[in-house]
């Protein structure tokens, strides 16, 4: 039965192509634009200038997170917070920055603010990502 259907289909297809061209490429479809993990795109300000290559998070962001962590260890809280804020300004949607913020507030025993930062990290990274899981682990610890 399936073989008959396939043959009929091929015949109809050939007929349609002959009569009206390839219908299947005429119809414009809407495709959802979404991703399970954040993929930074390129800045856009002119038609046709999309640099989709992308631009991962600028390396300086991770250097700043490291700097914040070092400052935190040496109890220089102002320097730590400054580095994190600078990282956030550069990459406001980088989940790792929020994860580091969470660590900062955990160290300060500001549990509620730490929790919120970790929620934000999860929302940006996606719950199933590595960062999302790290954030969840910290949240689990907090709720114990």
């Amino acid at each position, binding site marked *: 039965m399936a073989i008959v259907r396939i043959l009929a289909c091929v015949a109809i297809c050939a007929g*349609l192509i002959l009569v009206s061209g390839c219908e299947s490429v005429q119809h414009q479809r809407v495709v959802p634009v979404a991703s399970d993990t954040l993929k930074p795109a390129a*800045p856009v300000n002119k038609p046709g200038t999309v640099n989709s290559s992308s631009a991962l998070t600028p390396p*300086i962001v991770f*250097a700043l997170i490291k700097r914040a962590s070092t400052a935190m260890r040496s109890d220089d809280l102002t320097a730590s917070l400054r580095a994190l804020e600078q990282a956030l300004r550069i990459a*406001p949607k980088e989940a790792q920055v929020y994860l580091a913020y969470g660590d900062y507030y955990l160290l300060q025993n500001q549990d509620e603010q730490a929790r919120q930062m970790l929620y934000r990290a999860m929302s940006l990274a996606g719950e199933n990502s590595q960062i999302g899981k790290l954030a969840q682990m910290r949240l689990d610890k907090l709720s114990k």
Partner: protein
Amino acid sequence: MPTKKQRAKPSGKSPSSSSTRAPWSRHGTILKFFVVLLLCFGGWLVYLDAQVRYKFEGKRWALPAQVYARALEIYDGRALNLENLKQELKLLRYHEVADAQVPGSYSVQGKRVQIVSRAHTLPDGRHPSSHFEFSLKGDVVSGLKSSDQAPLQLYTLEPFKMGGIYPGVKEERALVRYQDLPADLVTALRVTEDRDFFEHIGIAPLSIARAMWKNFRAGRIVQGGSTLTQQLVKNFYLSRERSLIRKANEALMALMLEAHYDKYAILETYINDIYLGQSGATAIHGFGMASQFYFGKALAQCQLSEWALLVAMIKGPSWYDPRRHPDRAMARRNLVLSQMRDQGEISEARYQQARARQLGLVTRPRLQTNRYPAFMALVKRQLRTDYNEQNLRTEGLKIYTTLDPQIQHHVEQSVSRMVPDLAKRLAEQNASAALQAGAVVTGVGTGEVLALLGDRDPQYQGFNRALDASRPIGSLIKPAVYLSALMQPDQYHLASRLRDQPFRIEFENGQSWSPDNFSNEHHGEVPLFRALASSYNLSTARLGLALGVDAVRDTLQKLGIHKAITPYPALFLGAQSLTPFEVSKFYQTIASNGFNMPLRAIREVTTADGALLSRYPIRVEQVIPAEAIYLLQHAMQEVMRSGTGRYAYQYLPEALNVAGKTGTTNDNRDSWFAGFSGDYLGVVWLGLDNNDPTRLTGSTGALRVWTDFIRRIPQYPLSMVKPTQVRYHWFDNDTGALTDERCRDASPLPIWGEPEKSTYQACQKGFSSFGGWLKSWL
């Protein structure tokens, strides 16, 4: 000496005895007089000494708070275009040259930019002058490195000083420490004003005698004998009155000053106090401020000829004003230079080189004016919660704000360019009224206020519409209504059918409410996302009534509206009045994925010496589930792609995903738009102060201004992270029923949870492709 006993003798004595004691008595009176005089003099000295020490050891000057815009951070991957960079460098008074070598200059060759920055201080410390370069390819910074080709991760330029918070006395002063004074300046000052400064004790009798002799011979005053210390005393403590008593006080206080303090402290105070010119009602005091006022750069960055000119002006800042009397100033400057050469302080070659230089003046800067008055008003309001007015005006605090001069520039330009055009429509109807504007731009991920405009004239210092014009927001409220629904995923999703038909509500007080669509057309049943995208009033009002006023009010409060909300059904269509700034708070929560993020205009406050006083760190609080916000943002993107905001894509690139909402109030009295990309949220209001109709809708007014500035700023598109509980399903465009992705006229919509499978319908209009049909058949 008369004793107390002698003085206590009865007064009724014989003349003879009186005459025999007369000489003693006379001497006693004179003595008493001198004792009293001495005591008075001693008291006076004590008083003067207290004066000298009190003012010198206390706060010497009332220093206005200095307010700075955000510093431009340059790093690989930064979105930046050449036009905006040049605009910023112009603001910082950098000069474009062929080959940048000196601090404060830059060069552009193709896409390569070289900058030689000036040394500056930021809250994190001192940043030395640096020579670095980078490329601008596709509006992105790349290849950042120092001049010796070592890769650089980040360089922060000096922030633009956008204004100050000034005391009543109009003085501008930029303090300089003695150790930062250029040696040539000190030499020029010493040679010209007080050769023996480092030797004398505050006064120089020989100098006075020499000056008196010269003046006597000339028959007029040709030379002064005052030391620098005396000049400082005169300016710092005394009036300008010419009298012997004042002159005596000056000498005494000069001696006291020298007795208490070392030469360096005295010279430092002199250099920061000396009057060196006038800008309108504002006096220029000190070499630090004068170098910026006349040469547009820091004192340390000036050259010998410029230091000589500043010293030359001490004798008469008005008479030798280099802008008004350049020849006179040049002659006096050259005299200072020649004295330095004659004293052997500079070589003949340096003298000739400095003498050959032009005055090198910059255009007169406007002082004591705030470049961004509307933003400054916000800064002051936020500061007043932590600082008293007196401290802000006198302590020289440094306030580092979030203002982005590039974005502010574009907002100002767009309003100035577009509002007059839009006002022409109004002129036919109401010629006397001026269309007004208010705008706020914030960073989506940071909550930082990047630009703020309170009037169509950016320099207007009065009523600030961005902060204070509370107007009905019309359809800008609709996202809150739809969000209230989307937070109930078991009842509503983006494809839920809403009735867009007229209705009437009768209230107990006899009044009634019967809203209508803007177009007066009715659309039957429409999917929820379409009702929002096309801003249908009837379906929104019906949805609001089904949800209840309390639910929508609760959502508004979660989104950051803390003012009283009137609980009437008209709330669903935007009868609530808000300011553009309040709308920004509300939309900020939507743009930042349901995280409430208080808007901040200030990053840090430090003392004049750079010690940290306050930080204003970012705070976040999740108030709306990420799933509901994801759905709302999807619908708000549809507003821009196919709804009332679609005008924007006539100018924006397709790749720039944006979400937003238009708002119009009754009789077109207010035109609103709020929209965001991945980086920026902008809110624009247009209207009349007298609340008359404008003939503008949100789409034909505010949206156009928003589009005009947003398209000029390099930025990343809105990119949503899909929560795991959200999945895409396909719905029939006509019936809204769940259907197959292969169906023609079916569209995908994100759904939180699982949609009701019982509503599934097979393809009603055939398949979108032959392949689809084939698959279904197989």
